[in-house]
C-alpha cells in the first residue's frame, strides 16, 4: 500500500475571471507506515493539494493513486463538526464501529471526557480542534490527512497532541500526511519532509529523515530544523 502523487498543475478561475495557478508540479510517494510532512509558506496551495488527495477536488492535471480501499480520515483546518450533534455523536457518526473502550481512551488522551455531551457551539476552538482529532483517530484510518491540526493550540497542548499523533501513527501501519508551517512539528514528526515553494506550489525538495521518530534527541531536532532553514529561506 502506497500513496503516489503526481500533480502536474492545478489552476482555477477566480471570481474576477483571472486564471490562478495554484500548483505547478508536486510529485512524491509515501509508503505505508510513513509520515510525510508538507511544509510551505502560507497560501502556497497546501490545502488545495490536500483537497485533491482527499478526493474532494478532481479538477487538476496529473494523477494521484490512492491506496486501494483505504479508509480515509482527515482533520480539516477548521474543525468541521456537526453543530447539532453532541461531541460523542460527532465522533461516532464518523466512526460507527469504534469500540467503547477505544473511544474512552481517545477521549481520555485528548481530555474530552467532560465534554462528551456538549454541542460544538459550546466549545472553544481549541476544544473543537481536539474533537476533530478524536474523530479522525476513532476512524482508525489507513490514510490520515492532517491539515494544520495543531494551529491555535497552546504550546503545552500542541506538544502533547504531537506526541499523541506520533503514538497513533506508530500503532497502525498507515500513511499519514501532515500539513504544517511549524518547522518544529516537521522536524519532530516527519519521516519525510516535503518543502513547497510559494504559489504556484512546486516541490522544492523531499527530505528523508534517517533518525527514527522515537529516537530523536533535542540536538537531532535542532539539526533538522537548521537543515530545513538552510534549504529554503522563504519558509519561516
Amino acid at each position, binding site marked *: 500500500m502506497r500513496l503516489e502523487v503526481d500533480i502536474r498543475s492545478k489552476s482555477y478561475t477566480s471570481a474576477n475571471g483571472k486564471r490562478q495557478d495554484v500548483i505547478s508540479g508536486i510529485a512524491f510517494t509515501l509508503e505505508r507506515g510513513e509520515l510525510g510532512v508538507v511544509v510551505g509558506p502560507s497560501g502556497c496551495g497546501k490545502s488545495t493539494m490536500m*483537497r485533491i488527495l*482527499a*478526493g*474532494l477536488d478532481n479538477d487538476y492535471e496529473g494523477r494521484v493513486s490512492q491506496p486501494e480501499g483505504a*479508509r*480515509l*480520515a*482527515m482533520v*480539516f483546518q*477548521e474543525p*468541521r463538526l*456537526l*453543530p*447539532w*450533534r453532541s461531541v460523542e*455523536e460527532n465522533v461516532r*457518526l*464518523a*466512526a460507527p464501529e469504534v469500540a467503547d473502550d477505544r473511544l474512552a481512551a481517545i477521549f481520555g488522551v485528548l481530555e474530552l471526557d467532560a465534554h462528551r455531551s456538549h*454541542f460544538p*457551539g*459550546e466549545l472553544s476552538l481549541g476544544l473543537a480542534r481536539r474533537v476533530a482529532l478524536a*474523530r479522525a483517530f476513532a*476512524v482508525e484510518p489507513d490514510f490520515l490527512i492532517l491539515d494544520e491540526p495543531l494551529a491555535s493550540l497552546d504550546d503545552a497542548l500542541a506538544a502533547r497532541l504531537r506526541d499523541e499523533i506520533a503514538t497513533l501513527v506508530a500503532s497502525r501501519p498507515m500513511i499519514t500526511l501532515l500539513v504544517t508551517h511549524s518547522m518544529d512539528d516537521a522536524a519532530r514528526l516527519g519521516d519525510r519532509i516535503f518543502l513547497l515553494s510559494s504559489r504556484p506550489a512546486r516541490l522544492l525538495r523531499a527530505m528523508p529523515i534517517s533518525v527514527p521518530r522515537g529516537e530523536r534527541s533535542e540536538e537531532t531536532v535542532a539539526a533538522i530544523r537548521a537543515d530545513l532553514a538552510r534549504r529554503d529561506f522563504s519558509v519561516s
Partner: protein
Amino acid sequence: MLRLLSFALLLATWWVAATIAGSAKLPPPSAVLAVAVAEAKSGALFLHLGATLARVALAFTLSMAIGSALGYWMGRSRLANRLGDPWLILLLNLPALVVIVLAYIWAGLTEVAAIAAIAINKLPTAVVTLREGARALDPSLDEMAKVFAFPRGRILRHVLLPQLAPYIAAAARSGLSLVWKIVLVAELLGRPNGIGFEIGVAFQLFDIPLLLAYSLSFAAVVLVIEAVLVQPFEQRASRWRLRAA
C-alpha cells in the same frame, strides 16, 4: 396566564360588541356555544371537522413531500432551477380560486380534484422555502461527510435534515396556514361535507351562530395543532442553538 388574560379580553370585547350590534348581526358567545354544543351532540360537527382535517392532512403531506424534494433539487442543481423557475413563478402567482375551479372542471367534483387543488396551491411556497434552504447548505460539511464516507442515509439524517429543519418548519408553518384557508374554499365550491360546506350552508341561510360555531371550532382545532405539533417540532429542531438573549 398572560395568554388566558388576553383570551378573556377577546371574549369580553365580543360580548360588548354583540350587545351593541344586536344579536341578529353578532350573536353573543353563549348563543354560538349553544349551537356548537348542539352540532357536536348530533355528530355533525365532528363529521365535518373530520372531513376537513383529512383533506388538510392529505394535501399538506402531499405538497410538503413533493415541494421539499423539488425545492431541494432546485437549490442544488443549477439546471433544475433554470427549468423549474418559470413554472414556479407561474404557480406562485396563480390565484387559489383559479386552481380550484380548473381542478373541479377537469377532474370533476371529486375528492381527488379537491385535494390536488389544495396541494398545488401550497406546493410553490414549499419549493421556494426549501430551495433557499438547499442553497444555504454548508459545503464544508458536505466535504466532511464525503471524506469520512458517510452513507446516504446518514448524510440525510445527520447532515442535511438538521440544516434544512428551520426551512422545513417555516414551510410547514406558512403552508399549513395557507392550506387551512384554501381547504374551506375548495369545500365551499365542490364538496358535500366539511367545514367549508357548512359555512356555505350557513351563509345561504344567513345563520350567523351556525357560521361562527363552525368557524371557531375550526380555529380552535388549528390552534391546538399548532401548539401540539408544529411548535414542539420547531423547538426540538433548534435545541442545539444557543438561546437568543
